[in-house]
């Protein structure tokens, strides 16, 4: 406060501090006049004229010099005035003075640390009336000014009070806005969390910031019912007709549809949209953050925290739709390191005997979806992992003598479905390489499928169909006279399924990403079913090659229309009312959940 040489300034600063100290001391003796006046002057917030600004700055500076005289009991109203001040309401001068005051106050006495941290965290979000201008240039400029100072203050406190970060963690977690808060509030708060993660205190609070971020994403995710997603954009209905097996069926076969046909109150749809938008913006933030972490070389540490929070939050979240794509994106940034860690973790959970069955089934579903949908994975890597999966299934089946039983062998059936799913996507490319082809051929797939446990009758019919179809076209599972071993299943399994036979509850975690704004991060690394060349594709060979390249670059809206025309030889119209033949040709990569989604 004032250099020694600056006599005039020094004297007035000293005098001011002295004055304030006297005022504070006087309160203990019962004289609150000066004190009240002081507080009164601090309450100007609206449109301060330069005089008022100067007064406020002076007061704040004087207070900084008198913090040791502030008593937590007697000066309660002063403390609440200070804590109620919002950086957002003032200009840079006042902000600086306030910053200094808060840091000095926090470090003067242990009792004020929590108070000051709380005050700073409450400044993460602007006042209500400010929210609208936040997106405008002057709002953004203000935000930068405020947040820079708030975080500098937090750092200042952490420097002097080493245990402050752990208290800060707790306070940040407590004050995080819930799913019902306005989008702007949630977004700016999460921005702050990510600033903490990448800032100087990152090594202390970073992990819990990542955890909290994933928690927010999941919270929003589970608020979105499936059907809201579908109704979001009527133009996109085509996608789901394509990818949804169920919609292609006629009414009488929808035995697993518990919920009524699409009948929603407008409010429900609206709410779903609002939440989806919030999630969309947050996902964008998250992806941006991961990208900058990658550029700074910090992705490995961040990924560790991400993986842990995935395991504790996302893996068990019943049918989360989009939150898991943070993992997908992180792996796409760094397939060798992060990607392999992800796969190892999933395999570990799947193979372990300690974790509950639901986790293991979820883990293998994630594995299957990841291996199928990640464009950045090499076919040989997929084959290696597949081999390990097949190995497990084979060993398991060897140990079992029992018959088909859905309840007792859920993990086994989930694993079988997983490997069929992966092969639907990757069979052709595996068979294209001789080395990998021999690996595939040597896998004991036949033995697994022929086992008494009969996975082919339990797993989702559409997947089994597609798999067998491709297998037949690739001449797998054939005996010497050329007959396909599983031919008979083509007819019988469909009827069994429609008859309500054991159906596996299905979940394909990395089904196409539907949030519009953040889609640009995922799209380049994602394999859509339309892009997959199957083993029976040979007839439409040459035309498809050209279309393939065009399609990927084409306008997103058209992609699925193109898709429709590619997959079926018959005209588009007959699709909806199509015959059995047409229905078989789609690959259902998205399944509508068979249980009512509202009670997720």
């Amino acid at each position, binding site marked *: *406060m004032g*250099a*020694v040489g600056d006599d005039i300034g020094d004297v007035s600063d000293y005098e001011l*501090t002295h004055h304030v100290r006297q005022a504070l001391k006087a309160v203990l003796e019962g004289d609150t006049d000066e004190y009240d006046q002081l507080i009164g002057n601090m309450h100007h917030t609206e449109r301060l004229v330069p005089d008022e600004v100067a007064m406020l700055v002076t007061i704040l500076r004087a207070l*900084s*010099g*008198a*913090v*040791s005289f502030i008593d937590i009991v007697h000066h309660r109203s002063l403390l609440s005035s200070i804590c109620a001040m919002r950086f957002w309401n003032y200009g840079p001068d006042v902000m600086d003075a306030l910053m200094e005051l808060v840091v*000095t106050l926090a*470090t*003067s*006495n*242990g*009792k004020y*640390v*929590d108070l000051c941290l709380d005050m700073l965290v409450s400044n993460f979000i602007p006042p209500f009336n400010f929210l609208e201008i936040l997106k405008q240039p002057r709002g953004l400029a203000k935000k930068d000014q405020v947040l820079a100072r708030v975080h500098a203050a937090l750092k200042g406190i952490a*420097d*002097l*009070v*080493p*245990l402050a970060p752990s208290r800060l963690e707790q306070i940040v977690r407590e004050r995080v806005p819930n799913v019902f808060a306005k989008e702007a509030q949630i977004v700016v708060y999460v921005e702050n969390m990510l600033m903490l993660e990448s800032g100087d205190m990152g090594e202390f609070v970073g992990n819990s910031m990542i955890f909290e971020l994933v928690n927010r994403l999941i919270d929003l995710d589970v608020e979105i019912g499936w059907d809201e997603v579908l109704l979001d954009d009527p133009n996109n209905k085509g996608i789901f007709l394509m990818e949804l097996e169920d919609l292609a069926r006629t009414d009488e076969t929808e035995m697993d549809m518990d919920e009524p046909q699409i009948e929603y109150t407008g409010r429900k749809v609206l709410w779903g949209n609002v939440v989806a938008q919030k999630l969309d913006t947050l996902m964008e933030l998250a992806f941006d953050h991961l990208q900058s972490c990658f550029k700074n070389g910090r992705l490995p540490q961040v990924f560790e925290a991400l993986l842990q929070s995935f395991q504790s939050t996302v893996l068990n979240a019943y049918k989360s739709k989009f939150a898991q794509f943070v993992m997908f994106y992180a792996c796409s940034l760094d397939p060798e390191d992060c990607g392999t860690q992800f796969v190892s973790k999933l395999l570990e959970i799947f193979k372990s005997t300690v974790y509950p069955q639901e986790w293991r089934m979820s883990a293998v579903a994630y594995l299957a979806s990841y291996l199928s949908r990640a464009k950045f994975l090499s076919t040989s890597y997929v084959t290696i992992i597949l081999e390990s999966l097949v190995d497990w299934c084979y060993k398991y089946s060897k140990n079992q003598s029992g018959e088909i039983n859905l309840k007792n062998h859920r993990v086994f059936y989930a694993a079988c479905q997983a490997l069929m799913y992966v092969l639907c996507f990757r069979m052709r490319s595996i068979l294209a390489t001789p080395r990998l082809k021999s690996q595939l051929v040597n896998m004991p797939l036949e033995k697994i499928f022929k086992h008494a446990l009969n996975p082919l009758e339990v797993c989702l019919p559409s997947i089994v169909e597609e798999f067998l179809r491709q297998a037949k076209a690739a001449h797998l599972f054939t005996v010497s006279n050329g007959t396909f071993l599983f031919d008979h299943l083509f007819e019988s399994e469909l009827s069994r399924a429609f008859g309500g036979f054991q159906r596996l509850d299905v979940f394909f975690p990395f089904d196409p990403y539907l949030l519009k704004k953040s889609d640009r991060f995922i799209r380049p690394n994602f394999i859509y079913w339309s892009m997959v060349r199957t083993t029976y594709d040979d007839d439409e060979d040459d035309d498809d090659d050209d279309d393939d390249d065009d399609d990927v670059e084409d306008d997103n809206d058209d992609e699925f229309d193109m898709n429709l025309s590619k997959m079926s030889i018959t005209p588009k119209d007959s699709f909806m009312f199509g015959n059995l033949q047409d229905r078989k040709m789609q690959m259902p990569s998205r399944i509508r959940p068979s249980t009512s989604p509202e009670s997720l």
Partner: protein
Amino acid sequence: MEGLKVSEADLLVYLHPSKSKNVSQAIYNELSSMLFKYNETFDGVLLAYSASTNDELAKILPGLHPCFGVRLKAQLLLFDPKPNMILEGKVVKLGAQSIHIVVLGFSSATIIDEDIREEFDYKVKHGKELFASSVNKRHKIEIETVVRFVVKSFDEETLHLSGSLLQPNTGNVNWLDKYAEEDLVERLIPRNKETIKRRIIAK
């Protein structure tokens, strides 16, 4: 430095049955969750521990969750500063009104200007802030100096100390250890030689 003590403790840790696969890990987790917090039973802030089990057997408690109790022998390093103890810490911030110190890397201490003795004046030299003694020119307190101070109070919840530099044996540790000894010896020459030796050793 005072305020640190090593305690021997016989502890009994109750573990949930799910932890039975890796008991030592669970014990370490349990003890680690108590680090850097003031513990009334131990009468101090736990800084470090080393623990070992004597017995391989543990009794299972009757009840809903059959937790089992593992007996440990532990050495605990505890930090328990009381008023008038002398502590040392590194200065992280200096101002005209206060000096901020960090003790043992985790505890923050503040010394306000009222508790700094008269001989120290706040100065700014070459852009650096410091407290310089007017009596001994070489006795300075700057940022990064290790300072010895007397404890006034200790907040157990926030682990915050408030200290004082009023006593003559407080200040910059380097200066105190080097020069104060000479100073003391000179002033004590008239006294008994034995007394001098005792005083020097006791430092």
